[in-house]
C-alpha cells in the first residue's frame, strides 16, 4: 500500500475513533483540568453529539454498567439527604471562608461508636483518589488483621472533588456507599487531583483565588455533611494528602490540607489525620521526605517512584498511624494486635498538630 494512502487511512481512522470516543475523551480531559486539551475535546464532543456519533460508545458503556447520563450536584444531594432526615437546610457552614461559622444544627458531639471486638467489628470504608488507594490497599489488610474492622476498599484513579463531572464522589457516597454499605467509619483521602481550576456553571474559577476557595471549601464541607449519619454514629477520618515530592508535579497540598482540617474542626463527626506530622520529616516545617524511620528506628522508603503515591512501606506506616488515630477516639483495646509491628508503624513519639498553619495561598 502506498505511504500516502497509509497516512490517509491512519488519519481518518483516528478521526473516526476520536469522534466515536468523544465523550470518554472529554471526560478524561476534564479530569486533568482546564486547558487547550479540554477545549479541543469539548469541540470534538460537540461535533460528535451533533451527528450522534457518540451513541455506539454510549451503548457499550451502558451495557458495561458505566454511568453515561447527567449526575446530581452536591447541593441537590445534600437537600435530598436533609429532606429525608427532616433536618434544617443549613446544617453546615459550607461556602464560608473565615472558618468562624459553626454548624447551626442542635449541639453536635463527637460520634459515639461502640468499642469493636472480633465478634462485633466496625465496618470501615477506606479509599478516595489513587493516592488514597495506594494507602488504602494496605489499610485494608491491616485493619482486618486487628479483628476490629470489616474493611471496604473503594478508590478511583484520577478523581477528586474538583471534577464531579468526571467522577461524582458525593453522588457515590449518597447513592452507593452510605445506603448500601452504611459504614461505621469512613477513612477518606482526596486532594491530590484538586490542584486545578474549578468550573461552576460554565464559569472557570482560577485556582487559589477567593472565589476558588469559597467553592472548594463548600464542596469539602458539604461532602463531610453528606457523610454524616443521622444518628451521629459514623466517624469520618479525613486523611490529609501526604507531602508530594518533586516528581509528582503537584503542589499546594498544604493549602488543600488546611481547608480539609479547617472544615473538619467545624464538624465533630470528622477528625482530620495530620499526615504531614507523620510523613513530613522533622517539624515544624514539614516537607517531603522520601525516607522516614519506623518505630524500630530503621529508615525506610515511603513513596513510589513518582514521589506521590505511597509505597507498600509508606502505606503500612500511614495505616498504622490511622489505626492509632482511630484508637484515640474509639476503644480498640480488643485488638488482636495491641502493639503494631515496629517495622511498619510510625514512632510513638510523633504528635499530630492540633492546628495547621495558614498557608500563603490563603492570605
Amino acid at each position, binding site marked *: *500500500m502506498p505511504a500516502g494512502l*497509509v*497516512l490517509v*487511512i491512519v488519519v*481518518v481512522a483516528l478521526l*473516526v*475513533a476520536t469522534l466515536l470516543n468523544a465523550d470518554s475523551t472529554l471526560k*478524561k480531559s476534564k479530569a486533568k483540568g482546564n486547558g487547550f486539551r479540554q477545549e479541543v475535546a469539548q469541540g470534538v464532543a460537540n461535533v460528535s453529539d451533533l451527528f450522534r456519533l457518540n451513541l455506539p460508545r454510549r451503548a*457499550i458503556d451502558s451495557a458495561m454498567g458505566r454511568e453515561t447520563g447527567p449526575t446530581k450536584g452536591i447541593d441537590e444531594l445534600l437537600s435530598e439527604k436533609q429532606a429525608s432526615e427532616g433536618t434544617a437546610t443549613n446544617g453546615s457552614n459550607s461556602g464560608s471562608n473565615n472558618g468562624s461559622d459553626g454548624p447551626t444544627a442542635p449541639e453536635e458531639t463527637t460520634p459515639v461508636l461502640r468499642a469493636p471486638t472480633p465478634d462485633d467489628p466496625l465496618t470501615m470504608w477506606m479509599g478516595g483518589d489513587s493516592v488514597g488507594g495506594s494507602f488504602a490497599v494496605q489499610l485494608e489488610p491491616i485493619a482486618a488483621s486487628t479483628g476490629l474492622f470489616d474493611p471496604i476498599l473503594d478508590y478511583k*484513579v484520577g478523581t477528586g472533588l474538583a471534577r464531579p463531572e468526571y467522577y461524582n464522589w458525593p453522588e457515590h457516597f449518597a447513592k452507593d456507599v452510605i445506603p448500601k454499605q452504611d459504614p461505621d467509619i469512613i477513612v477518606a483521602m482526596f486532594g491530590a487531583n484538586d490542584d486545578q481550576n474549578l468550573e461552576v456553571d460554565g464559569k472557570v474559577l482560577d485556582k487559589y483565588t477567593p472565589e476558588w476557595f469559597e467553592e472548594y471549601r463548600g464542596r469539602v464541607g458539604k461532602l463531610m455533611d453528606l457523610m454524616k449519619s443521622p444518628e451521629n454514629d459514623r466517624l469520618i477520618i479525613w486523611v490529609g494528602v501526604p507531602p508530594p515530592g518533586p516528581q509528582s508535579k503537584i503542589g499546594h497540598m498544604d493549602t488543600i490540607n488546611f481547608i480539609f482540617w479547617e472544615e473538619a474542626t467545624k464538624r465533630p463527626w470528622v477528625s482530620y489525620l495530620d499526615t504531614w506530622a507523620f510523613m513530613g520529616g522533622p517539624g515544624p516545617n514539614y516537607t517531603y521526605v522520601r525516607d522516614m524511620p519506623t518505630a524500630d528506628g530503621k529508615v525506610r522508603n515511603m513513596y513510589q517512584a513518582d514521589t506521590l503515591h505511597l509505597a507498600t512501606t509508606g502505606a503500612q506506616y500511614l495505616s498504622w498511624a490511622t489505626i492509632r488515630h482511630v484508637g484515640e477516639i474509639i476503644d480498640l483495646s480488643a485488638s488482636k494486635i495491641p502493639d503494631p509491628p515496629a517495622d511498619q508503624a510510625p514512632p510513638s513519639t510523633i504528635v499530630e498538630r492540633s492546628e495547621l498553619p495558614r498557608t500563603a495561598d490563603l492570605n
Partner: protein
Amino acid sequence: MLFPTIDFAIFFLVVFVGNWLLRPYRIAWRWFILGASLFFYSYWSWRYALLLVASIVGNWFFGRVIHDALGPDGERTDRSRWLMRAAVVANLLVLGYFKYYEFFAESISARLDDIGIHVSMPTLRVLLPIGISFFTFQAISYVVDIGRAEWRRPMPLLDFAVYLSFFAHLVAGPIVRASEFAWQLDNRPDPRYVEASEAFMLIFRGLFKKVVISSYMATIVDPVFSFPGGHSSWEVLWAIYAYAIQIYADFSGYTDMAIGIALLLGIRFPQNFDAPYRSLSIQEFWRRWHMTLSRWLRDYLYIPLGGSRGTTLFTYRNLFLTMLIGGLWHGANWTFVIWGAIHGLVLVGERVVKQWWAERGAIGLPPQVVKALQWALTFHIVCFAWVFFRAQSFGEALDVFGRLFSSGGSSAAVTTVMIATILLMIASQFVPQRIPEGITVQFSKLAPVIQMAVLGVGIMVVNALGPEGIAPFIYFQF
C-alpha cells in the same frame, strides 16, 4: 509517551510523514529519525536523553577502538579483547549504578544488621531511566560483535545513534542486533509498498492485548497480590493464571505495537513472542518468550561462560547462571533472582530427565497424553515462577502460595467472564499462524474506506473495553 495515547498518535503521524518524505535523503532522514527518537525519550525526562546520548557516544567510540585494535585480517588481539571487556564493564557499571546500587546497598545493610553490625550505606536516590536495560544490552551486543570480529564494519556515529535510540524499540525492546538494523538504514524501502496491513493488524492486536486483556487481568491480580489473605484459594489460583496472561498480554502487546510501528516506517524488527504458553518444556518456552532476550543471553552470556563445551555439570552450571543473571536483569529485587533460579533449575532438570527417559524408552502412554501432561506441567511451572516475578518480596510470594491451601476469603473476582478470558487467551496460543495471516490478507483486500472504518471502530471498541486511564507497560520498569 506511551504508545496507546493521543500524544503518541500525533507524534507518530509527524514521524510517519517525515520518514517517507525524507527517506530518499540519506543524512537528513537519519537526523530526522534521531531527533524524533530523542524527543520521544525526552518526553519522560531530558536527563534520560542525555544519558542515552552519552551511551551512544561512548559505545560508538568503544566500537571504533575495538575495531582498530583487531589484527590486519580482522582477527582478535589481546588489545581488542581487553577493550571489549572494558566496554562491557563500562556498560554494566552504568546499568549497575542506576538499577542495582540501592538494591545491593540495602541488601548488604540488612544482612549486616542481622548480625548486629549497623552500617548506613549511602543512598543515591537516582531515578531509573526508562529502557536502560534494553539499550544497554543492545550496546553491549554491538561492541561484543565487533570484538568477536563478527561485525566487521563499525557503524558511522549517526547510524549507530539511530540504531540505539530508535524510538520504536528504545524503551521495552525487542532487543535488536546492529546486524539486523544497520542494513535497513541503507536499504531504502519503496514508499509505494508499505506493509500496512500487517502493521495495522500487529498494532491493533497489541492494543487489544495491552489495553483490554492486560488491564482486565489486573482487576484480579492487583488485589490478590496486595492482600492474599483476603482471597480464597480458588481466587488466588485464578489470579496466578491471570498474571501469566497479564504479563504476556502486556509485554507481547507492546512488542506487537513496536513491530507494527516500525513496519509502517519501513523497518522490520525480529519476532519477540511465538505463542510461549503452548510450550511443552521450559527450554521450548525460552525459544518462544522474549526471544530477543533469550538469544542475547545465549550469545553474550551462556556461550562466553562456556556453553555446553565441557562436562555435563559445567553445562548445567552455565545454564543455571545464565538464567539467574537473566532474572536479575529484570529487576533489582531478590524475587527476580528467585524467578531466574527456578527457570535455571528446571532447565537443568529437563536435561537430566530427558537423558533418563532416553535411556528407558517410551512409558506406554499415548503421545497426545504425554504432550498434554508436558504442556500442563510446563504451564504450571511458568505460572508458579511468575508469582515470584510479580510479588514485591519473597514473603509476599509465600503468602500467595500459602493462600492456595487455606480456607475462607472472597472469590468475587472469579467471574465467568474472567475464567473465559483466561481460557481463551491460553487457547489463542494454539491458533495456527495461517489464521492471523489469513485475516491480514483479507484485511488488505478491503477497500481503503472500509479499512478506515474497521480501524476506527476497532480503536473505539478497545477504548470502550479498556479501563479509564492507561497503565504503564510492565516491562517499562526494566
